[in-house]
């Protein structure tokens, strides 16, 4: 395992496997300087108490009404909210930029938990397309299956599906971790730029197609590799990390991680526009 105590701040994320290129410009490393505490809080967030709990039945509410009520309950200090009867409604729980323990007693439709930063969410059901899109921090656990574009463009946090997921899981993801207990569909990790995806089951065709960076771990069979996705050596450090992550995710605790495949970017597509035509052909 990488010695995280001795590596410098600049390379910590690299040692964790989050990315391999040198970050420049206004990156998250600069945004989250611990000396700038105000950067950890959004304007309009609430100081909630996790022991203050309430139920919210959204059966007869529209998604905007339900989301507004969640915000209202947080403003009253409720830190644990149980949503009853979500019944597959779209866009529930979106835009929560707060610490919160949120539990859904049922399934969500499209775009559930999109653009969130911080909440711990458990969904005792299934989710539709684009669950937790743009998640920045926090943890979202889905007890059943998920639709396509699961965790699209997430920046951080842990996104866990205990069942199977559809196509294009982790498309365009820029950080964080996605963990799948079952199988995943085609184009998993399509154009991913950072972060890690763990799939305990099988995965469909074009895995990691055009991935720029990041890592995909697969426990089952792979339908086919996408353009520029290549095998890499599974290190002991990787195995340690996988075991810890699966334990925290309450999923596949006894899974033999030593047999997993590790897929990374071949990086032939980097600087694609600068390649000569013959080189482009080889890259694809």
């Amino acid at each position, binding site marked *: 395992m990488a010695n995280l105590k001795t590596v410098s701040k600049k390379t910590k994320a690299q040692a964790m496997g989050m990315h391999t290129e040198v970050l420049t410009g206004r990156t998250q490393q600069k945004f989250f300087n611990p000396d700038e505490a105000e950067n950890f809080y959004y304007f309009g967030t609430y100081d909630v108490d996790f022991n203050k709990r309430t139920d919210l039945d959204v059966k007869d509410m529209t998604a905007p009404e339900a989301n507004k009520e969640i915000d209202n309950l947080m403003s009253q200090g409720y830190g644990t909210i149980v949503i009853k009867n979500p*019944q*597959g*409604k*779209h866009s529930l729980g979106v835009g929560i930029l707060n610490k919160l323990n949120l539990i859904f007693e*049922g*399934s969500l*439709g*499209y775009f559930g938990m999109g653009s969130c930063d911080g909440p711990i969410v458990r969904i005792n*059901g*299934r989710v*539709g*397309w684009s669950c937790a899109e743009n998640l920045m921090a926090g943890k979202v656990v889905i007890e*059943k*299956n*998920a*639709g*396509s574009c699961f965790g699209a463009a997430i920046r951080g946090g842990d996104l866990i599906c205990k*069942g*199977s*997921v*559809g*196509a*294009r899981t982790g498309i365009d993801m820029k950080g964080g971790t996605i963990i799948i207990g079952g*199988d995943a*569909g*085609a*184009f998993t990790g399509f154009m991913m730029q950072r972060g890690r995806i763990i799939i305990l089951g099988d995965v*469909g*065709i074009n895995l990691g197609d055009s991935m720029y960076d990041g890592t995909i771990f697969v426990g089952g069979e792979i339908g086919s590799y996408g353009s520029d996705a290549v095998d890499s050596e599974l290190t002991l450090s990787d195995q340690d990390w996988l075991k810890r992550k699966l334990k925290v995710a309450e999923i596949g605790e006894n899974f033999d991680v030593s047999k997993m495949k590790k897929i990374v970017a071949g990086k032939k597509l980097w600087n694609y526009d600068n390649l000569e035509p013959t080189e482009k052909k080889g890259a694809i």
Partner: protein
Amino acid sequence: MCGIAGLIHRGKSSNVGSELQGMLQALKHRGEDSTGYALYGDTDGKNFIMRFKVGENVGEGSSSVMEDVSVYDERKKVVDETLAELGAKVIKEERTLPYSLRYEIDYNVKDLLNFSQTIESIPGVEILSMGKSLEVIKDLGNAKAVCDRYSLDKLVGTHAIGHARMATESGVDIKSAHPFWGYPFSDVSVVHNGQLTNYWNNRRALENKGMRFMSECDSELIAVYIAQKMREGATLEEGMKDSLTGLDGVFTYFVATKDSLGMAKDTMAAKPLVLYESDELVAMGSEEIAIRSVLPQEIDTYDPFDGEVKVWRI
């Protein structure tokens, strides 16, 4: 965008007209230019049911040209005369709307190709469906509006598929609305969500084989493609599997026959589908909320994977 929905009861009948209306109405935000139903009702199986139109709905939003009702009357008269010449006896006649008719026909010829070609050679006439169980009803407006207009909520049967359409590739009219009848096969219908990119190549090839197209809607190609495969001896499932390579583009589609319901998803899995499956009922739709309209309790659903084809029988 479009939304599709379908359900099949296994081993019993149910009020499929009302159930499908609820499913499609839940998907109305995916498009309400037109809505169509393919309902497989409980019948004695003796006579053919022919749903056909002699004109278009020229209401608000329609891209069709206004015609006088007398034109419709004249076309209906010619249809009646042609049916008599073909030896088809009209047992029951319903004229739901000036342009939309439902006939029960006593007709004992198995090959519907010649029959359909003859009827549709009458200008302005299109057979929406022909079968001993199938009835295709489609018109402009959302699911509830069409259901109310045609009193579909009381129809009892075993299975049904439907479509809520946002017109993108062709006009806002009945002829471009789904479902499409799998001409000239009795009791075959198709609904589709997506776009086909090799439409014209396939269309020309199929027209050379004698198949007919009534619209320029790419989705019609699926119905004709599957029908042609079945004509060549393929089973429904074989025809659908073949379509995964024969059709190019993005699609999720349903096909229904007298006793079965199938789904196919393209190899890119670009179009959504959520599926619920039990021993008694299979229900599927573009979004879970469609299924929730018939199964509001907590249920287990899943997304079929890319390139998946499934067929269920009643």
